[in-house]
């Protein structure tokens, strides 16, 4: 035994026989998994071990090796989105948006896709505005007594009965539209958060092998969109060199053709490059296997369709679930068999490690808690508009949103933003 290992923990374990040794091993096992089950047992380990634990619990600096699985981010964001869809309380919605925004601010990189969050926030605000504008112009079935103003009403012919343009605008209907719009905006912002935090290309890489080619098509298309935008900007500024105004509809129309031409040429070049780099190499697969694959995939998809119809339709509840299960199974087997045709391997696939599980679980927890909250305090989650009352922040539902903050502490921290070089000379 070396000197270094003569620590108190080992000293208790070493002298007395197997039972003590086993207990010490158990203790060690309780401390070792980095899941953060609790503080280290006070007397079991020396200070050094507690420090090691803290070091393990601290979120590491992100790199490729410890990146969260993009699926985990999506599960987290969808969990928040589900929670948002279960309430119209503006305070709770604001809390959900705040949680998503905090996590994005804490954990997003400065990659191009990470900038999409701002766009989604703007889109959300636009949706709120649009919802209110529609409510003002088209009226609302919500009855209300607080009349704010009256728009001149457009007389419509008899066949357009039930449609109203203009007319009375009440405070109740505006508040209702605001709540409704906020809900949609919160959903959009949750999706935007997932977009900003997870690299979309890496998510597609997690698709099964048989769907790989579809995934590549989408990835190439996604890298094209920014290129297309860059082309438009470049050509628009180049118009200045010809002495033509750079703004306006005419400018966009005139550069449309060159931009499309450029995009087409580039896509041909990328296709050539992909071909020369081995895209679409296939392994030889016996005909029987290929047929089986086709039958299983198609049959499975049909089964899934029929099964879900059965589940949703009133009379088919009996056969719906088994059919859906069988269909899913057949489709999965088909996809796996189909994967045999592809010789591809994967370079450093993202792993669903403990931190990914925590992130995903936090989102799911928020969703489940909010669904439960609907059962016991429905009124607090859906503040009434008739009569008009100020919404209150219910304590328990509000607390149940907070687990969504977990990713801001467990997800790997993106490295301090590197000095960016100019993309072009």
């Amino acid at each position: 035994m070396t000197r270094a290992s003569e620590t108190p923990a080992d000293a208790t374990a070493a002298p007395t026989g197997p039972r003590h040794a086993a207990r010490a091993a158990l203790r060690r096992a309780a401390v070792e998994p980095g899941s953060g089950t609790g503080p280290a047992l006070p007397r079991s380990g020396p200070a050094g071990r507690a420090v090691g634990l803290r070091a393990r619990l601290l979120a590491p600096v992100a790199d490729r090796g410890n990146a969260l699985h993009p699926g985990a981010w999506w599960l987290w964001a969808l969990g928040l989105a589900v929670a948002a869809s279960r309430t119209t309380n503006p305070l709770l919605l604001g809390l959900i948006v705040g949680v998503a925004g905090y996590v994005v601010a804490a954990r997003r990189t400065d990659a191009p896709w990470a900038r999409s969050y701002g766009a989604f926030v703007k889109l959300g605000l636009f949706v709120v505005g649009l919802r209110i504008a529609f409510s003002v112009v088209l009226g609302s079935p919500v009855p209300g007594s607080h009349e704010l103003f009256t728009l001149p009403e457009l007389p419509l012919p008899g066949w357009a009965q039930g449609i109203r343009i203009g007319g009375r605008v009440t405070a109740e209907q505006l508040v209702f539209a605001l709540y409704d719009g906020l809900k949609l905006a919160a959903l959009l912002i949750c999706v935007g958060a997932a977009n900003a935090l997870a690299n979309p290309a890496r998510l597609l890489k997690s698709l099964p092998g048989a769907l790989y080619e579809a995934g590549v098509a989408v990835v190439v298309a996604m890298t094209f969109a920014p290129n297309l935008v860059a082309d438009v900007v470049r050509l628009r500024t180049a118009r200045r060199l010809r002495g033509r105004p750079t703004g306006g509809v005419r400018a966009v129309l005139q550069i449309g053709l060159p931009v499309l031409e450029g995009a087409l040429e580039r896509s041909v070049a990328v296709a050539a490059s992909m071909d020369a780099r081995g895209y679409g190499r296939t392994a030889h697969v016996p005909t029987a296997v290929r047929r089986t694959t086709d039958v299983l995939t198609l049959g499975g998809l049909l089964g899934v369709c029929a099964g879900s119809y059965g589940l949703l339709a009133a009379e088919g509840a009996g056969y719906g679930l088994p059919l859906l299960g069988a269909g899913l199974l057949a489709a999965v087997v088909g996809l796996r068999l189909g994967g045999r045709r592809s010789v591809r391997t994967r370079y450093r696939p993202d792993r669903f490690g403990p931190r990914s599980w925590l992130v995903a679980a936090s989102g799911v927890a928020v969703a489940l808690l909010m669904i439960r909250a609907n059962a016991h305090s429905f009124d607090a989650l859906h503040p009434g508009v008739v009569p008009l009352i100020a919404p209150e922040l219910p304590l328990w539902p509000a607390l149940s949103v907070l687990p969504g903050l977990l990713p801001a502490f467990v997800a790997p921290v993106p490295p301090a933003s590197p000095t960016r070089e100019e993309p072009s000379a």
Partner: protein
Amino acid sequence: MIRFENVSVTYEDAAGPTLRGVDLTVPEGELVLLVGPSGVGKSTLLGAVSGLVPHFTGGTLSGRVTVDGRDTRTHHPRELADLVGTVGQDPLAHFVTDTVEDELAYGMESLGLAPAVMRRRVEETLDLLGLAELRDRPIATLSGGQQQRVAIGSVLTTHPKVLVLDEPTSALDPSAAEDVLAVLQRLVHDLGTTVLMAEHRLERVVQYADRVLLLPEAVLGTPAEIMAVAPVHPPVVALGRLAGWDPLPLTVRDARRRAGELRARLTGQHPAAPLPRPVRPAPAPGPHTPDGPVSAPPASEARRSGGGAPASRAAKSLFRRRRAPAPAPAPETDAPLVDVDRLAVRRGRVEALRRVDLRVAPGEVVALMGRNGAGKSTLLSTLVGMIAPTSGTVRVSGLVPHATDPRDLIRRVGLVPQEPRDLLYAETVVEECAAADADAGAPPGTCRALVTELVPGVTDATHPRDLSEGQRLALALAVVLTAAPPLVLLDEPTRGLDYAAKARLVARLRALATAGHAIVLATHDVELAAELVDRVVIVAGGEVVADGPTAEVVVSSPAFAPQVAKILAPEPWLTVEQVEEALCR
């Protein structure tokens, strides 16, 4: 390793075959350089090796191409992917994924290599090409040289036996090009890779070649043999031919060893100025006397620069340090055409330019040099008003470019962008010219006459896309010159040009300078700078680090010195032409 047997390639709609009866054998582990003027089928020959011609491009290939025993007729490019690595002219068109590490792994994933092997090879390649720092970076944020290295790395990871490169260094600054070439040489020497490469800038590559293939004759020989007869050759060869050295030197080092006698003959003589006219010394940077509009622009611009909404931003920055420009000062013939004062440009957090001062007088030719991403293009864009300065002032003929109506501005300054195609919108040359006349308010036919003068033999109905690089550049230049701007800017004009097209461009630009146009060009091409330019401005990290007469700035710099200067240093000779003239005197 590579064998061509009586290969001809004919594209559809082409008048004749692009390649005719090529017989060729390239053994393993050789670096073969393809040389020849534009349009002789260099890219076609390279494409035939990787199978992209004719499987991808169409056209008819007769004869037989085999690579390591595999016939490209029966093997698709993807079935040759483990054997041949191809890098095209434009690295951006090569990338399939979005980050460096994924891009390096892409080829191996397609071939189905084991994950452990992939991991090891990616690490090796990152080190080999010096990309380790960039491994997680999105490719779109890399500079041109970095992108080119990633493109080469992405085909190296599959360990191909043959590497096919189409102009791998033409977009790179001299030192980035050296890096790429050093990597290629290492592959050839250490790993026995066979490399087939086409390149116009022979002065960069010819010394690395084991053999040279001259097209369209399809003669394969040692570099010295081929260079003795080739119509395209680097300055070192031209000097060797001039001095009658045999065997011809291919490297600066060989040439220096022979040059003792030539240096002796040249002692006491002085090189003629690159342009046949007295060169006006550039006004020294610093507080200069009367600012304000110059004589050339007529009344309209005084109104423009004087006031009104567009100039308000400039006026704000003027307010702090200077008086506003006087509306109509006395004509001042020596006033600079370009007057840049403490210019700074920021993009987000990036300071693209910092404290840049630049004056350019009428009739002067100035080259902006510096590595990729140093801010050269940004400076040019600022001069034509495509980018507004963050602080400092920019005046072109007394106008503030970004606040001037584009229609007025094109009569003061014209820019030929890096991609001349960006300037061309029309379907035919003649429509393009008509549009240019209309834009510039020039009499109809002005632009067409310029095109005929610059590139004789371009027909009216040609689509601009079908022109060669050189012709397209000339068309864009003609479009810009239609408005007769006193200042002409060119961004990387020699990219993709062969020596003949370059010589024509130099002649044209000299004629323009003699006619009183000021010319500013951003370039990596040191030989072009040596032949054409009075003054070199070196930009690094967004700042001007050197500004002076070409001979002074360039001779002392290892990266920016042209070959003749390196051979005849410390004497200030820059071009073969100067030496020739001196010897004839």
